[in-house]
């Protein structure tokens, strides 16, 4: 009788442990596991074998099971996000390794953190938006737009597109990204709207060096200043082309189909 009382007490604790499983898992197997736990203890009690060692073993074993089930759930649900994180870790290994062999690469913790956050943000955005895609053109368009946005931020933080990274004119490029973000939210990921948003982004990108030229009025007396200006326009046009290419692909996607999960074109 005293033994049955102990078994019921252990069962009560075991039931609490089982609550650590996910709700669907607990609802499906919780009762069966509790019964099995009790059955094992009753068998031992009948054979007059001590319970505490077995209880401890089953608690440890079940705790390992809880951890394993949660890990499996996380890996399954966030498989692509884990892949992105691993890819970023590999990318960040490049500068880390380079630092061991050359003094040309000098990254501090903040550099790694910013690069990691930027890469992860870009990858995550792609993953979330690509889920909505209905065609390869749409997916490639998202990839190009995100790659261009990433490079724009990266280059501006690292060296600055206009002059140096300290040149305030570079802040206008964050306005370019704002145009893209606002356009995307208005378009709600619908391909035709996305095409318009990316055309607007390309236009904003093209206007930045022109506005900078009007406001700053840099002298072009020296050859160095002239080539610098041409360089800014040249690099800028690469981004313009990337945004235009993305817009064109969104337009192609709009002609093909409506992305899954996106609302039909109005």
């Amino acid at each position, binding site marked *: 009788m005293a033994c049955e009382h102990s078994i019921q007490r252990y069962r009560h604790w075991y039931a609490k442990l089982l609550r650590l499983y996910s709700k669907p*898992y607990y609802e*499906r*197997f919780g*009762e*069966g*596991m509790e*019964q*099995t*736990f009790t*059955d*094992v203890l009753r068998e031992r009690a009948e054979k007059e074998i001590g319970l505490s060692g077995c209880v401890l*073993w*089953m608690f440890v*074993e*079940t*705790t*390992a*099971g*809880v951890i*394993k*089930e949660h890990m499996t759930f996380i890996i399954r649900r966030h498989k692509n996000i884990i892949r992105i994180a691993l890819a970023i870790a590999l990318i960040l290994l490049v500068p880390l390794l380079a630092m061991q062999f050359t003094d040309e690469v000098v990254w501090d913790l903040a550099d790694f953190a910013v690069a990691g956050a930027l890469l992860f943000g870009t990858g995550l955005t792609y993953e979330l938006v690509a889920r909505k895609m209905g065609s390869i053109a749409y997916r490639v368009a998202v990839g190009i737009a995100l790659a261009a946005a990433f490079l724009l931020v990266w280059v501006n933080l690292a060296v600055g597109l206009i002059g140096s990274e300290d040149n305030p004119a570079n802040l206008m490029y964050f306005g370019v990204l704002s145009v893209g973000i606002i356009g995307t939210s208005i378009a709600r990921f619908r391909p035709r709207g996305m095409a318009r948003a990316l055309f607007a982004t390309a236009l904003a990108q093209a206007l930045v060096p022109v506005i900078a030229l009007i406001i700053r009025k840099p002298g072009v007396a020296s050859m160095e200043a002239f080539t610098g200006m041409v360089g800014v326009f040249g690099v800028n046009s690469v981004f313009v082309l990337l945004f235009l290419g993305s817009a064109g692909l969104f337009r192609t996607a709009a002609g093909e189909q409506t992305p899954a999960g996106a609302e039909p074109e109005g």
Partner: protein
Amino acid sequence: MAKDKARSPLTPAVLHILLALSTKERHGYGIMKQVKADSQGKVNMGPGTLYGSLGRMLEAGLIDESNKRVDPEMDDERRVYYKITGLGNKALAAELERYRELVTVAKQKRLLPSTLAYGV
């Protein structure tokens, strides 16, 4: 696809559970006892491993759940019984065949436990 599943190698836990269910439907504790008996006490599966494996086997279609019922040899609690499916039978047969082939190779190479000098 189902054919692939039936041919893929099984984990030791899954193999033992399929073996236990190959003769009749059993509930969790019944499976646990049968696994222990089949392995001559070498495999002692706890509820965490057992139900984790059962969950994956149900998902893979190797086993199925029967209606809850009382085990006449035990208390009056109603229990879920598990039964092997056709796919589970095929997977078990394929795994046993792999073991048989392995033993044949070991015999040809005279690598049976009686002929091996362990620890040398």
